[in-house]
């Protein structure tokens, strides 16, 4: 009852004309940021931070939160329409979202992403409201062995994402291998930099994603003498059958996204990977995935939005950032003279509840904006491809160069783009490579830290309950096809 009263007060504070305007500004800016490759929500908030100095902390934090979850949806637009993930958390959406667009169901893909994001955003906010203090304690129990086990669970996705298991494993391992380029974070020595200073920072996710998905797709689609078809936009709202297929995916994605979002450094990217794999595992016909399955859009999209709410749990309850973006938001709270931490819910209750209430409002604004706009955005597909692909290449180049202000990254993008083109021609899935690049360094660091903690004993992974459960889940995920084959053989 007390919670509802506080939420009511939060709505009163969030519904002032100024705060509503900040919320609208935040979600719209977030969406634009999400569309642009190379500029993430954390960079956008950092850029806007000086402009909010002197304004109301509540309004500023409402706007920053709006940018955060608005960006998650913005990344969806480019993933579905042009196969370029604007954010790492949108990589999985490209797999089925773009296929849906090619089948003339781009409107439905954007529509279900908007509906899923709305439901997941609201459920995540309810989770934030009810579970922040107890869940943040669980998140703190995550040490290196638990992270190692969680990443191992994510890595089981490598074989499941692509069409060919062998090729998926190969490209995934190649991604992990690329993740070792740069300074070894454990001992601070350079590895695999081949004497190039610009490689000391490693291969950035955005360079690889833009190259493999954006440039590779363009090179594969602009072939000489190819037809230049005008794609259908189709309807935006899912029909009864599509809704039946997507509704459980949205709920599962919301749960997965929220729980993984709470874990510091895990965030929306791993959440969307795990949600996609979960959908593929529970599907009656997993072969539909990668060919335009609506659950392949609904699950990851719900997960990445719920993860944004989840990432605010440790930020508000403990003063620990759950992601890059919440780290910048935390800096903003400190700049406004607030002290994030366990007493945030008591000493700054009005701000916290206003932000929570604004997240409900912001998610509603996103839905109201995006359902009508989805059809408009999807009309991009009706422009002839020969007018579309040169601007896509220009955006890819600009995004990559601006990301680290480094022209060498553009060369790297070109090389990986050519590789992505070949991979697409011969059905080598690109998504496991991205997954490997993102998860590889986390896996290596957590493994080395765990073995340091245990003095080299591998039993540390089995003696800690959370890590043991996650390891068991990873083993189950790998062996599930084998067990189901044995089970089927026995029942026939």
């Amino acid at each position, binding site marked *: 009852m007390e919670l509802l009263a506080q939420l009511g007060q939060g709505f009163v504070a969030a519904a002032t004309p100024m705060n509503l305007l900040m919320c609208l500004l935040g979600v719209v800016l977030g969406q634009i940021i999400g569309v642009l490759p190379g500029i993430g929500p954390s960079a956008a908030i950092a850029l806007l931070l000086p402009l909010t100095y002197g304004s109301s902390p509540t309004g500023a934090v409402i706007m920053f939160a709006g940018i955060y979850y608005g960006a998650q949806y913005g990344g969806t637009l480019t993933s579905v329409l042009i196969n370029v993930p604007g954010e790492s958390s949108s990589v999985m959406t490209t797999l089925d979202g773009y296929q849906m667009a090619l089948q003339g169901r781009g409107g439905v893909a954007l529509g279900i992403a908007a509906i899923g994001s709305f439901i997941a955003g609201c459920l995540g906010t309810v989770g934030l409201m009810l579970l922040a203090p107890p869940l943040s304690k669980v998140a703190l129990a995550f040490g290196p062995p638990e992270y190692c086990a969680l990443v191992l669970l994510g890595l089981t996705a490598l074989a499941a994402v692509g069409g060919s298991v062998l090729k998926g494993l190969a490209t995934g391992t190649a991604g992990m291998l690329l993740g070792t380029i740069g300074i070894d974070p454990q001992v601070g020595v350079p590895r695999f930099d081949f004497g190039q200073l610009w490689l000391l920072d490693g291969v950035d996710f955005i360079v690889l994603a833009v190259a493999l998905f954006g440039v590779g797709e363009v090179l594969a689609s602009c072939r000489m*003498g190819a037809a230049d078809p005008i794609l259908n936009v189709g309807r935006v709202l899912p029909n009864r059958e599509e809704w039946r297929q997507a509704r459980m995916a949205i709920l599962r994605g919301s749960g997965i996204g929220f729980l993984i979002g709470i874990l510091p450094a895990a965030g929306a990217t791993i959440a969307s990977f795990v949600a996609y794999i979960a959908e593929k595992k529970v599907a009656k016909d997993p072969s539909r995935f990668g060919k335009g399955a609506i659950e392949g859009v609904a699950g990851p999209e719900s997960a990445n939005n719920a993860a944004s709410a989840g990432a605010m749990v440790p930020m508000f309850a403990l003063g620990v950032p759950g992601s890059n973006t919440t780290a910048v938001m935390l800096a903003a709270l400190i700049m406004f003279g607030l002290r994030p931490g366990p007493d945030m819910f008591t000493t700054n209750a009005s701000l916290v509840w206003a932000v929570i209430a604004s997240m409900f409002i912001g998610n509603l604004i996103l839905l109201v904006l995006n359902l009508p706009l989805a059809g408009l955005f999807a009309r991009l597909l009706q422009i002839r491809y020969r007018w579309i692909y040169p601007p896509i290449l220009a955006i890819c180049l600009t995004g990559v160069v601006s990301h680290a202000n480094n022209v060498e990254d553009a060369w790297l993008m070109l090389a990986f783009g050519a590789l992505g083109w070949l991979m697409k021609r011969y059905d080598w899935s690109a998504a496991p490579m991205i997954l490997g690049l993102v998860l590889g360094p986390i896996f290596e660091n957590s*493994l080395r830290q765990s073995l340091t903690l245990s003095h080299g004993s591998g039993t540390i992974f089995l003696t800690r309950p959370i890590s043991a459960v996650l390891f068991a889940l990873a083993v189950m995920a790998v062996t599930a096809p084998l067990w189901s084959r044995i089970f089927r053989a026995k029942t026939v």
Partner: protein
Amino acid sequence: MNHRIAPGELILALFFALLGGLWVVAALRMPLWQGFIPQSGFMPLWYGITLAGLAAAILARLWLGKEQPRQEEPIGKALVVIAVIAATVLGFELIGFAPSIFLLLLVLFAAVERLPLARSAAVAAGVTAVLFLIFRTWLRVSLPVGPLGI
């Protein structure tokens, strides 16, 4: 072996096998294990071995004809586009960001796709201006600058 292996598929498998091999060789020159802790070369060594092994398995499947052959499509235009992108990246440091992007768009529209020149120039200028405004003016990203200052 009486089937034809697609050259591109072979190139990909060989590329990944060589990449794995390169990582193995380089990792062996790094410390692998000290006391009870894996060192810098340990994980790269295993990644390299795994990648080389997987690529070898794919090569074997190709050799045995177990991979479905793909229909080859023309590659001429893709190679032209790669060359145009390479010229654009070269241009970033020579003539600056905005002129390079404008030329990339103009060449692709007018020369590669043979679209009307005036319309191509107008769209190229518009897209370049929007990108310049968003990234340079609004987000204040410092992009490569040429003799024209843009």
